[in-house]
C-alpha cells in the first residue's frame, strides 16, 4: 500500500494526472525545465563541471523559489493535502523458499544438526551458535520434548527475530514524487527488481518514472528501458554515453517532478563495496537527488546466494547511501539468504522485499513468519 494525494484517483488516466495543479509540488516545474536544459547543455562538456553547475543552479533556483513564492503558504499547502491509501496487488513470498530443516531430525540432546542446517543456510557461525543456544534455553524452560515442540520453538524464535513493523515501503509522506534509490553489487538483481516494483506500482495506478543512472555497464540503459516498457513507466536516460550518473539522477528528479510522477525509481550501476571511488560516486548520486527531493527508500539489493560477504556489503552501502531496506533476490533458487539475519541484528536494517524469479510478478513482501515457516518447514 502507498499513500498519495487524494485529488488523484486510482483509475484516473495518466493524461489527467499530468494536469494536476503545479503548486502541489514543492518545486516549481517551469524553473525546473530551465535547470534541466542547463544540465543537458553542460553535459557535453565535463561531468564534474556539469554537476557543480547543476548543484549551483539548484541552489539559485531554490532561493528564487523562496522569493517568488510565500514559503509559508507553500507549507500549508502540503500539510493540507489529503492523503488516501492506494491498495496495491498482493504479493506473497511462500513460493520462493524451500525448507532445509524438513530433512533433519531434531534432538534436544544433540542440536549440532540444527547448527549445521543454519550454517548451510548462510546464517554464519556466530549467529548459528547463538540461535542454537537460544533454542536450547527456550526448550529447557518450556519443557519441550518432541520434535514438533522444537520446530515450533525455532519457528517462533526466527519469527520474533525477523519480526519488525517497518517492512512496508515508506511511501506515505505525501511529498511526491517518492524517490526509491536502488543500490547493490554487480549482478544482484537491481534492474530486475526495479522492473517488478515499477510494474506493481503502475498496476496500482501510480505514475512511475525510472532513472537510468547505470551509465557504465554495457546495455544497462536498454535493459532498464525494456522494463520501463513492460511496466508502463517513463524513463529518463543519459543524453551522452558514459554521462556522470549523478547528473542523470539529477535530471531524473527534475523530470519526475515536471511530469508529476508519484514515484521515481533510480537504477544505479553495480559496484563492489570495497571500491572507494565507486562508493563515493553513489554518495554523490544520493546528495544530488536530495537537492530536489527527499529520498523515501534506499534499497540494497542482495543476492540470496551471497555468503558472509553480504554483511560487509550492507555495512559499506549503509555508510555511503543510508540504506533503509534490503531486497533479497533469487530466493527461487536453493539458497536461503540466512545472512540477512545478521544484517538485521547488527545493522538494524529490515528486509523489505524478496525476489522469487525473473518474471515481472515474481516478487513479494518479506514476512517474518512466512519466512520462518518456509525455512523450518511445517511442524
Amino acid at each position, binding site marked *: 500500500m502507498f499513500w498519495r494525494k487524494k485529488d488523484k484517483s486510482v483509475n484516473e488516466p495518466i493524461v489527467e494526472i499530468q494536469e494536476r495543479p503545479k503548486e502541489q509540488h514543492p518545486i516549481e516545474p517551469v524553473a525546473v525545465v530551465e535547470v534541466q536544459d542547463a544540465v543537458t547543455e553542460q553535459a557535453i562538456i565535463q561531468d564534474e563541471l556539469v554537476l557543480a553547475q547543476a548543484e549551483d543552479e539548484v541552489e539559485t533556483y531554490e532561493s528564487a523559489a523562496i522569493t517568488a513564492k510565500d514559503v509559508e503558504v507553500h507549507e500549508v499547502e502540503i500539510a493540507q493535502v489529503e492523503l488516501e491509501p492506494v491498495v496495491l496487488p498482493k504479493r506473497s513470498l511462500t513460493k520462493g523458499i524451500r525448507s532445509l530443516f524438513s530433512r533433519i531430525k531434531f534432538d534436544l540432546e544433540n542440536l549440532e544438526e540444527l547448527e549445521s542446517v543454519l550454517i548451510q543456510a548462510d546464517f554464519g557461525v556466530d549467529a548459528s551458535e547463538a540461535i542454537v543456544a537460544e533454542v536450547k534455553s527456550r526448550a529447557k524452560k518450556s519443557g519441550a520434548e518432541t520434535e514438533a515442540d522444537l520446530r515450533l520453538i525455532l519457528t517462533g524464535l526466527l519469527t520474533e527475530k525477523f519480526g519488525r513493523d517497518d517492512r512496508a515501503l515508506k511511501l506515505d509522506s505525501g511529498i511526491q514524487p517518492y524517490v526509491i534509490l536502488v543500490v547493490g553489487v554487480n549482478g544482484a538483481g537491481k534492474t530486475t527488481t526495479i522492473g517488478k516494483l515499477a510494474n506493481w506500482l503502475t498496476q496500482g495506478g501510480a505514475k512511475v518514472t525510472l532513472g537510468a543512472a547505470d551509465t557504465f555497464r554495457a546495455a544497462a540503459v536498454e535493459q532498464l528501458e525494456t522494463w520501463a516498457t513492460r511496466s508502463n513507466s517513463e524513463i529518463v536516460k543519459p543524453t551522452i554515453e558514459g554521462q556522470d550518473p549523478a547528473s542523470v539522477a539529477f535530471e531524473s528528479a527534475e523530470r519526475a517532478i515536471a511530469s508529476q510522477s508519484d514515484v521515481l525509481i533510480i537504477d544505479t550501476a553495480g559496484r*563492489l563495496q570495497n571500491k572507494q571511488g565507486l562508493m563515493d560516486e553513489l554518495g554523490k548520486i544520493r546528495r544530488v537527488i536530495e537537492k530536489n527531493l527527499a529520498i523515501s527508500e534506499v534499497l540494497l539489493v542482495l543476492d540470496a546466494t551471497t555468503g558472509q560477504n553480504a554483511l560487509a556489503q550492507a555495512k559499506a552501502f549503509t555508510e555511503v547511501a543510508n540504506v533503509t531496506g534490503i531486497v533479497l533476490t533469487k530466493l527461487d*533458487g*536453493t539458497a536461503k539468504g540466512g545472512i540477512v539475519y545478521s544484517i538485521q541484528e547488527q545493522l538494524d536494517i529490515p528486509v523489505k522485499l524478496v525476489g522469487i524469479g525473473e518474471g515481472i510478478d515474481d516478487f513479494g513482501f518479506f514476512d517474518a513468519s512466512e519466512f520462518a515457516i518456509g525455512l523450518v518447514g511445517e511442524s
Partner: protein
Amino acid sequence: MFGNLSERLVETFKNLRSKGKLTAADIDATLREIRRALLEADVALEVVKNFIAAVRERALGDEVSKALNPAQQVVQIVQEELVAILGGEQRRLSFAKNPPTVIMLAGLQGSGKTTLAGKLAKWLKDQGQTPILVACDLQRPNAVNQLQVIGERVGVPVFAPEAGNGVGNPVTVAKDAIKHAKQKQFSVVIVDTAGRLGIDEELMKQANDIRKATDPDEVLFVIDSMIGQDAVNVAKAFEEGVGITGVVLTKLDGDARGGAALSVAQVTGKPIIFASTGEGMEAFEPFYPDRMASRILDMGDILTLIEQAQKSFDEDQAREMAEKMAKDAFTLEDFLDQMQQLRKMGSIKNMLAMMPGANKLKNQLENIDEKEIDHTEAIIRSMTIKERKDPKILNGSRRLRIAKGSGMTVTDVNSLVNRFEQAAKMMKTMSRGGNPGIPGMPTGLAPMGRPQAKKAKGKKGSKSGNPAKRAAEAAGIELPKTDKGGSAFGLGG
C-alpha cells in the same frame, strides 16, 4: 568482530612454542579455529568437514611430531591441502585439434558470464586467435545488446541472429553459430548462455541441449566468488545437468574470501582455470591456487614466510646443530653457518614485515640491525678455523689481529666472544634439559645486537623462563614482542 585467522592462530599457538610438541588437544584447538575461518570464508560445511578430517589425520602423524616447529607444520599442511584441492597447479584452456575450439559458458543469473565472454574473447584475440561471440542468452532483457556492445569494445564479432528478450531458441542459435564459424573460419567460438538456477530442470535441459548442439571443448562454469553455502548445490547441479570441464571465479576484485572456490573444486573435481577481477575487459587472469588458498585463510603472507624459512633452513641440519650443542660442540664456525642461513632467508626486516600484525613490531624491527650481522660475520671471518672451533685460544694478540682484519675494534671482538660463550652455554643447558627440538627458529640464528645486550645483562633477576628467550637474551637479543606475547611461529625470536 573477530580478527582474521592468523590473529586467532597466534592466540592458539601462543603457548605452543615453549612446549615444542603438539598434543592431540593442541591440534584440535588449532583445527577448530581453521574450521571456523573456513566457514566464515563461505566454504561449504560438508567440504569443511572432509577437509578438517584430512588435515587432522596428517597433523597427528609423524611429519608434525618430528617437525622443528609443529605449529608451523600444521599450518603448512592446511596450506598444502588447500592448494591440492584448488587444483595443484594451473590448468590451461584446451583447444580443439581441428578449429574452431568451442567454449561454452554456464552459470547462475548475475554471475558475470557476459562480461567474462568479452574478456575471454579479448584475451584470445590478443594471443592471435580469431574468436567469435555467440549470443545465446535470449532470456535476460537486453543481454544480446550487452554482448554486442562488449564485442564492439574488444573488436570481436558477435553472432546474434535473435534479438532476445524472450524471443528465439538458444539451441538453434548455438547450432547455427558453429556452422557460421566453420564457414568463416573463426578459430574460437565463445557461447554466452542465459543465467539459470540449478533446480530449474527445464532450463538445465536447455543448457545440456546447447552443449549437445555445439560439442564444446570447454564448458566453463562461471561462479561469483561472493557465493555462500549454496555453492555446493549449484556446482553439483551444473556438473550433473550440463557437465563442466572447468571453473571461472568472478568478482575476485571484491573483498569476499571466496571459500566457494574450495567448495566448487572439491565437489566437481574440476579445475578453476580463470579469475575475473574487475569490470574492465583486461581484468582477467589465470587462476593461482596458492594465492587463493592464502586468501581463503586470510593468512597474509604468513605461509610464504613459513615456506621461505623452511626452504632455507634444513630441518635435519637444525637437528644436528641441536645435538652438537648438547655435546658442547657448538662453535663459532657453526655460528657463521647459521648466519649464512639467515641471509638466505632474505632480509630479516622484510621477513618480519610479512607477518600479520607486524606493524606492532615496528619498533622492535628497528632494533634488528642487519649491519650487526655484517659486523659479526666480518669478525668471525677474520678468525682462523682453529680459532672458530675453539674460541678459548683467543688471546690478546689474536684478538687484535682479528679486530684489524675485520675493521672492528678489540672491544667489539671481546663482546662478540663473550656473548657467544654465554649463548653456547645457555643452549647447552637448554638442550640437556630434555627439550627434544628447538622451539621456534634456532636461537643461534639471532644476530648479536649490542644495545639490547646491556639491557638483558642489567636485569639478571628477570631472565626469561623460556629457554629460547633466555638464550636469546644471553646472546644480547631482544625478542620482538607483540601484545599477544610472542610472534606466531617463533620467527624473530
